[in-house]
């Protein structure tokens, strides 16, 4: 990437300082856009996760109906109507990492806009797949560990532990770390090239 042709670092302001400033500045517009798109994305996410769940069910028994703008239910059609809504959850909580993702990818200084947007596009695509799988594992873990006797009779110890651990790992560390992980995947090389080293002046042994 020819650094000098795009935006040469201004006098003494480091790449990292520019990046941090840009991330903070991008948070608000990204947040507004995320807020606008959230209802549509929630619908898309629920529909996609429902389809993925149906691939593992025969017959199809899981529905993910919306309760309101942010919340939805896990519903099992094979349960008695009074007990069919087995769990309520906030869909919006699944994908708020888009705030960090958008701000981090748009804030990188010294990268042409076209490439920034292209990288962001790939990162968003990966994140969408991640969100669908996260919702899938969320529902599966509800079935495996949170429905009392029904869970115990339908899932063995290995399945309960596996679904529980998958949800624990996807829902906290990887959901929260995904923006950083993706950002590092695209820009770590750039960051390694921007590290500050001691001045190469005489006397010191470190140069």
């Amino acid at each position, binding site marked *: 990437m020819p650094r000098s042709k795009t935006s040469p670092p201004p006098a003494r302001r480091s790449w990292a300082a520019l990046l941090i400033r840009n991330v903070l500045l991008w948070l608000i517009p990204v947040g507004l856009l995320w807020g606008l798109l959230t209802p549509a994305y929630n619908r898309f996410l629920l529909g996609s996760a429902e389809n993925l769940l149906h691939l593992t069910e025969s017959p199809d028994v899981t529905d993910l109906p919306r309760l309101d703008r942010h919340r939805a239910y896990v519903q099992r059609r094979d349960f008695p109507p009074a007990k069919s809504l087995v769990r309520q959850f906030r869909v919006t909580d699944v994908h708020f990492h888009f705030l960090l993702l958008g701000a981090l990818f748009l804030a990188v200084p010294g990268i042409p806009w076209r490439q920034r947007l292209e990288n962001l596009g790939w990162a968003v695509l990966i994140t969408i797949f991640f969100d669908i799988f996260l919702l899938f594992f969320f529902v599966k873990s509800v079935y495996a560990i949170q429905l009392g006797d029904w869970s115990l009779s339908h899932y063995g110890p290995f399945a309960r532990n596996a679904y529980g651990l998958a949800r624990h790992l996807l829902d906290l560390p990887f959901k929260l770390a995904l923006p*950083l992980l993706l950002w590092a995947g695209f820009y770590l090389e750039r960051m390694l090239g921007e590290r500050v080293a001691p001045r190469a002046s005489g006397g010191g042994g470190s140069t």
Partner: protein
Amino acid sequence: MSRRQEHAPDRATFPGQRRRREATFLALFVLLLAGGFTLISLHWVNGHVVEPFTAGIAQVSGAALDLLGQDVRMQGTIIRSPRFAVNIRNGCNGVEAMLIFLAAVLAFPAPWRSRLVGLALGILVIQAVNLVRVVALFLTGAYFPRFFDSSHTVIWQTIVILSGVLLWIFWATRFARPAEPAV
């Protein structure tokens, strides 16, 4: 940061080496992250390390709220006042942000001394931000309960993780200087 520093691109490596370094970082980061979170999910670790740590955070947060004139009572990890009560659980104790920061620092190619300094400072800053989060969330719940849900997950979770990420970027570019600087 010392003034005796200058911008010196990391030019000691070939593209292939850089890619390998990048892949190593990503693999180590994922492994450390998964390992760390699996470790804290064990009952013994949760009961003997995470819960006491969370109770300590609740105590400090309660003391801070007391200083702000809130009539709070402590009960383990629960902070209670006549207006509102909050139970500090995993996800609200800053441990997640600390583990993400720790995994990123340990996976990054840097001298151990820089890593240890980064970890010590990073953990302090993350916990300070988390203390502000708990206090702010309690006040939000007490006075603006309508905004509690969004603040709890979306806003403050983002702020705490963001503080860890920005701190890591700052540390990685300013303090974790290459082990063998370019001549």
